[in-house]
């Protein structure tokens, strides 16, 4: 009996361990099965080249169905077998880890510029696409008209999509109903803006009998970024460039050494001292900022418009049925200058890795994503299935579109989000958009006042040091507008500290780049 028992327990133990080992074994065989199955698939249609595309995608995109007809259509048109890998939202880390472990896709879309991408380029993991540009007319046209600076020693390592590079939708949004109530116009100058914010803060625009409103609210800066939402004040006083400035001798200097900075920050300090700015704006994320706007706490905020017009006004009206939003160009200074949106120095890079066996097909795939043909397929779908066309009028078949992951109301297929273009840059608004004219007008206004950069690139030194010097900038910016430090002393200290802790190195790099461009 005893031995029997012992045998049994041994057997249980062994089975347990075996089953555990088997658990690993099983998954192993499963994945190899899958791999061989897909391998067979590729072999069956011997023309189809398997193409793995790794992208961080866009959260807004719906997941892809297994039998997605758009992917099938792309496969058919390009003679490829697309293997799409979308990593979860915000997981650029995964892309970096996969690359660092030697796991390369054929085509990748990722943030640019980053130190990781620089490394991929330096180590030859991303390959230049110059040789394939003849196959990529749309990409070529874009690269050679404004994106020349993305080339490194004459070589393009992919197509850079600058979010908001061609158009912008960013300005100050006001409570139009409050302005009307207080008999004020949308402010066009800094003085107007001061008066409007003053009235918002002191004349009880919400009519609740309490002094509980602010003029302007905004958000905290992103990790490693400069506080930039008040930059309109500097541009109004004539700060010419968004990134770096030139002094009288033509030397590259940081923005706070330019006279416009002092004037701008004096203005901001006045707004802050008179409590016209939300005292806790540093606590706000974007949702928090908008909430303050909806909840009658602030009468103005910086925000992106375009297709957000309907969303912001809709939300406002959910709280205040009479709420109306209004906007105009950023306020101008004494010389009539002004602006708010700056051209971004980066975005999303879509490139080809050395792993790609058929680089021509990979290039054709990138071209397709950006080409009018590809845009049409990814926005509208397949004619007759996803939509019907009657002259210029497109009628969507929402039911069929939903099957392939198209977003509602004429928005795109999952593959169209977060790689080579966004609706803003294509000026794309579906015909269903209720505030179409206003949305388009917001883009016209904002795009006209874009502030240029002195140099379009971010070099390796700046990539490494920018977050550290931005911290210093932010600290002094806050200390000055909060009145903790005298303006001149503050700027002088900022200048010294900024230059010491990496700023001088950056300036040197920028100067070199600037001199190269001048030639």
């Amino acid at each position, binding site marked *: 009996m005893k031995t029997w028992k012992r045998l049994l327990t041994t057997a249980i133990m062994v089975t347990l361990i075996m089953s555990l080992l088997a*658990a690993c074994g099983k*998954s192993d065989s499963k994945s190899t099965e899958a791999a061989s199955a897909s391998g067979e698939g590729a072999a069956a249609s011997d023309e189809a080249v398997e193409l793995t595309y790794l992208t961080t995608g866009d959260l*807004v995109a719906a*997941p892809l169905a297994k039998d997605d007809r758009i992917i099938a259509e792309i496969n058919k048109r390009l003679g490829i077998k697309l293997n799409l890998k979308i990593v979860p939202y915000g997981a650029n880390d995964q892309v970096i880890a996969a690359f660092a472990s030697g796991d390369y896709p054929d085509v990748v879309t990722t943030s640019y510029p980053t130190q990781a991408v620089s490394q991929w380029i330096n180590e030859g993991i991303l390959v230049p696409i110059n040789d394939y540009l003849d196959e990529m007319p749309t990409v070529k046209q874009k690269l050679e008209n404004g994106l020349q600076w993305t080339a490194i020693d004459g070589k393009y390592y992919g197509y850079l999509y600058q979010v908001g590079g061609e158009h912008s939708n960013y300005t100050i949004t006001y409570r139009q109903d409050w302005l009307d109530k207080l008999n004020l116009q949308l402010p066009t100058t800094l003085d107007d803006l001061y008066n409007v914010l003053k009235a918002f803060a002191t004349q009880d625009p919400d009519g609740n009998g309490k002094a509980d409103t602010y003029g302007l609210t905004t958000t905290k800066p992103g990790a490693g970024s400069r506080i930039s939402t008040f930059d309109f004040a500097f541009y109004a006083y004539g700060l010419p460039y968004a990134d770096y400035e030139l002094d009288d001798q033509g030397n590259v200097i940081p923005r706070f050494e330019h006279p416009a900075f002092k004037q701008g920050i004096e203005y901001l300090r006045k707004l802050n001292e008179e409590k016209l700015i939300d005292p806790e704006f540093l606590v706000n994320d974007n949702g928090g900022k908008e909430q303050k706007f909806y909840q009658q706490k602030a009468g103005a905020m910086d925000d992106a418009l375009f297709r957000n017009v309907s969303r912001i006004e809709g*939300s406002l009206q*959910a709280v205040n049925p009479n709420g109306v939003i209004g906007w105009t160009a950023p306020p101008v200074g004494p010389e009539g200058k002004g602006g708010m949106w700056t051209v971004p120095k980066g975005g999303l890079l879509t490139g080809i890795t050395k792993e790609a066996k058929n680089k021509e097909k990979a290039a054709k795939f990138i071209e397709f994503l950006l080409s009018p043909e590809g845009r049409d397929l990814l926005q509208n779908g397949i004619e007759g299935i996803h939509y019907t066309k009657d002259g210029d009028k497109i009628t969507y078949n929402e039911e069929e579109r939903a099957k392939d992951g198209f*977003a509602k109301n004429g928005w795109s297929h999952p593959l169209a989000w977060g790689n080579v273009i966004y609706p803003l840059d294509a000026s794309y608004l579906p015909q269903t958009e209720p505030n179409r004219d206003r949305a388009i007008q917001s883009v016209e206004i904002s795009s006209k006042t874009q502030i240029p950069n002195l140099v379009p690139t971010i070099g390796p030194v700046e990539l490494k040091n920018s977050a550290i010097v931005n911290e210093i900038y932010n600290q002094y910016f806050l200390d000055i507008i909060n009145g903790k430090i005298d303006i001149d002393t503050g700027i002088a200290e900022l200048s010294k500290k900024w230059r010491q802790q990496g700023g001088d190195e950056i300036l040197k790099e920028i100067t070199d780049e600037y001199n190269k461009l001048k030639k």
Partner: protein
Amino acid sequence: MHSRFYGSRLFDGFNVIILTLLGVITLYPFWDTLVVSLSPLDDNLSSAVHLFPRHFTLAAYDYIFGMKELWTSYGVTIFVTVVGTLISMLFTVLAAYPLSKSSLKGTRVIMFLFVFTMMFSGGIIPTYLVVKNTGLMNSVWALIIPTVIFTYNLILMRTFFQTIPESLEDSAKIDGCSDVGVLFRIVLPLSLPSLATITLFYAVARWNEYFNAIFYITDHDLWPLQLFLRGMLFQNEAAYMSGGESTFLLGPSVKMASVMAAALPILLLYPFFQKYFVKGAMLGAVKE
């Protein structure tokens, strides 16, 4: 005698008041989340504190329960939680028992080597390679096997085993039980509260896990619930940035309904485990 009785009563009274207060304070975030998930946009946007739903609506739940992704991610997470917890418990119990015997040679060294891994690791690259080479990439097993034992839980389990009187085990051995027999027949039945606790710890951790999924899963159909939730939480932000489709009219309530949908199933587990935390779980065994 009387003063002691009153003192005890007074303490009971205070105790109830303090615990009730703590209960109210800790209930608030959950309650607020629930109320927002059940309220329409105008109520949610118009005030910052939500004590009661003024207009009750299930629209947000209709919306998220209509999403296919929610159901696939439920499937993944339930599988990972159930199967993962079972395997983890098996591994942990099997290892914790011998390690609880300080007289057994070598256990201290092994324990030290296990604890060492809590502090030092090779980093993401070699771990990624091991996961890849063991064939777990893009499979649900990647969410289980690479973290099958939590050293923290192993240590706790071992500590609990150590509180069991050796005399009980010795008498079982005299009765002819092997070590394995002692573990399964004597030790485990005596350890129900701690088994329940460690099971709960594993289940909750598996349920809330998303880190491994970010690194090892690219197939959207294998995304666990927490990735779905993260998606819902960041959606408005992303939609704002990119101009994508936004569910703004449901806005906050959809976010909070997602939080509820992601938390409720695992919360329901607790009362079930609670019954093992009753004093005297050992009593019966000891008297036997």
